[in-house]
């Protein structure tokens, strides 16, 4: 599809050719160039990422709050703030979101945070057990609007499952691409939905490159790659994490948020969501700090933050946190900007610390996180110990996926406490009767 460039002045008057609700166009985050809505993702002037621009609802914030609160218990309660048609809730979709915000007092006690100040936003309960259902739900609506019939993606695993499931529900064909060495559980969870699942001989960055090339080739004609040519719309799904967190806290922005970094898209969109809530008057404008969390074995953004750089040098990933194993993160530079602008930081933890944190969260709060959740909890603990995260302020830690996706990470250390004969004597002898 040819890219249509419209002058900024004209953009105000140009009616979008597609119905994506309040979305008015796309703008380049890097240079500000404005484009009409379409399946494009990079600025033709500077290659910068395109983002959805809106005509957001004006009017009484209290009215909007009530309208949202009366909406469905899923992300579509925020439809007025998303690039989706007004009747989105009536279309076949997985309807993710409105996941628990767990008040984590037991975990707080363990890591030295004041009671009532620590929360875990637990996204493991989404339809395919990760936050990816949120972003795919947005991408599906864009794919419908642009007339695509095949949905695709490059994936570290969670997204492949989310695309497969959402495509099945919405009646799209799916063909998703994953690295060949993914955890078996994620392969099963992506393949079960009946779409095509293609393992690429390489790491995630190789898969991503392949998909970017496929889009520019006739072979990929008519395909909607949720995180490539639909990426501007897809990314907006992560804003719903910000909306939900604030609404669940009583329409208040938390003081500190700890967010995992893969491509960095989620972190940047949570920040965008918070800014929109402030702009709309739905929450009080107050300072907040955003902390990015990476695995040491794939920590290009953390390394750049610590070195004071504003450019991210790619790395070759080697970590158990495969869902975060993106060595060349597209939004890395913006993560750096946001962490610095908000007074936050970017930190990393090693594989051992990730496993310890998974077990700590499970043991204290009954939440079984995937490795990415181990990364955020581990980084939170590390930054509290270092005095970087204030233990007396409200902190929200994201768990973006279910531990069932990464069983291998804790399989060795989660064995039977004892194996005994079925007799009371044997039980007594095992020393467990206390």
């Amino acid at each position, binding site marked *: 599809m040819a*890219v249509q460039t419209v002058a900024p002045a004209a953009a105000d008057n140009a009616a979008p050719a597609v119905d994506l609700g309040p979305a008015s166009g796309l703008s380049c985050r*890097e240079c500000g160039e404005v484009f009409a809505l379409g399946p*494009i*993702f*990079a*600025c*033709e*002037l*500077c*290659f*910068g*990422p*395109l983002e959805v621009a809106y005509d957001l609802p004006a009017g009484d914030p209290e009215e909007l709050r009530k309208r949202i609160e009366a909406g469905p218990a899923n992300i579509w309660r925020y439809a007025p703030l998303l690039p989706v048609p007004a009747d989105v809730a009536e279309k076949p979709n997985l309807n993710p979101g409105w996941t628990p915000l767990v008040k984590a007092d037991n975990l707080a006690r363990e890591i030295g945070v004041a009671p009532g100040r620590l929360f875990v936003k637990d996204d493991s309960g989404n339809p395919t057990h990760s936050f990816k259902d949120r972003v795919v739900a947005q991408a599906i609506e864009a794919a419908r609007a642009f007339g695509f019939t095949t949905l695709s993606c*490059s994936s570290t695993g969670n997204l492949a499952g989310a695309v497969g499931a959402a495509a099945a529900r919405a009646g799209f064909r799916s063909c998703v691409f994953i690295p060949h060495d993914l955890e078996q559980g994620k392969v099963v969870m992506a393949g079960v939905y009946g779409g095509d699942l293609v393992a690429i001989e390489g790491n*995630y*960055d*190789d898969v*991503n*490159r392949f*998909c*970017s*090339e496929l*889009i*520019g*080739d006739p072979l990929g004609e008519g395909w909607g*790659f949720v*995180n*490539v040519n639909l*990426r501007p719309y897809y990314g907006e799904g992560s804003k719903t994490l910000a909306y939900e967190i604030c609404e669940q806290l009583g329409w208040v922005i938390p003081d500190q948020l700890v967010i995992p970094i*893969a*491509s*960095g*898209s*989620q972190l940047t969109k949570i920040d965008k969501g918070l800014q929109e809530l402030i702009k709309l008057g739905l929450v009080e404008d107050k300072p907040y700090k955003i902390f990015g969390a990476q695995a040491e074995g794939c920590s290009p953004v953390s390394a750049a933050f610590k070195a004071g750089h504003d*450019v991210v*040098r*790619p790395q070759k990933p080697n970590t158990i946190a495969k869902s975060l194993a*993106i060595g*060349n*993160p*597209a*939004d890395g*530079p913006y993560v750096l900007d946001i962490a610095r602008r908000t007074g936050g930081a970017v930190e990393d933890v090693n594989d051992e610390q990730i496993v310890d944190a998974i077990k700590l969260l499970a043991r204290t709060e009954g939440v079984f996180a995937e490795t990415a959740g181990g990364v955020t909890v581990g980084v939170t603990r590390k930054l509290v110990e270092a005095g970087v995260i204030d233990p007396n302020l409200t902190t929200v830690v994201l768990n973006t996926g279910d531990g069932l996706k990464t069983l291998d990470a804790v399989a060795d250390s989660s064995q039977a406490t004892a194996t005994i004969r079925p007799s009371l004597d044997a039980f007594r002898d095992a020393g467990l009767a206390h």
Partner: protein
Amino acid sequence: MAVNVRIPTILRTYTGGQAEVAAEGATLAEVIADLEKNHTGIAARVLDDQGKLRRFVNVYVNDDDVRFEQGLETATPDGAGVSIIPAVAGG
């Protein structure tokens, strides 16, 4: 050195719609300069005002990301494939 350069969709306005074009040069910098000779304006899309690769452009020589190599000074051997790809994908 003669190389083949894969052109992303957003730069094909400079190559008359061609997805792949031939270019000459012993390094990536020379290849981009040669591209500019035949497809005026394309270099300014790939390079910033300081003449460095823009931060949202990924360039591969064969299968190697030039950021892991010598950047613009990365060698482009005869017959190499050069791919220019928008970086804002994935995740």
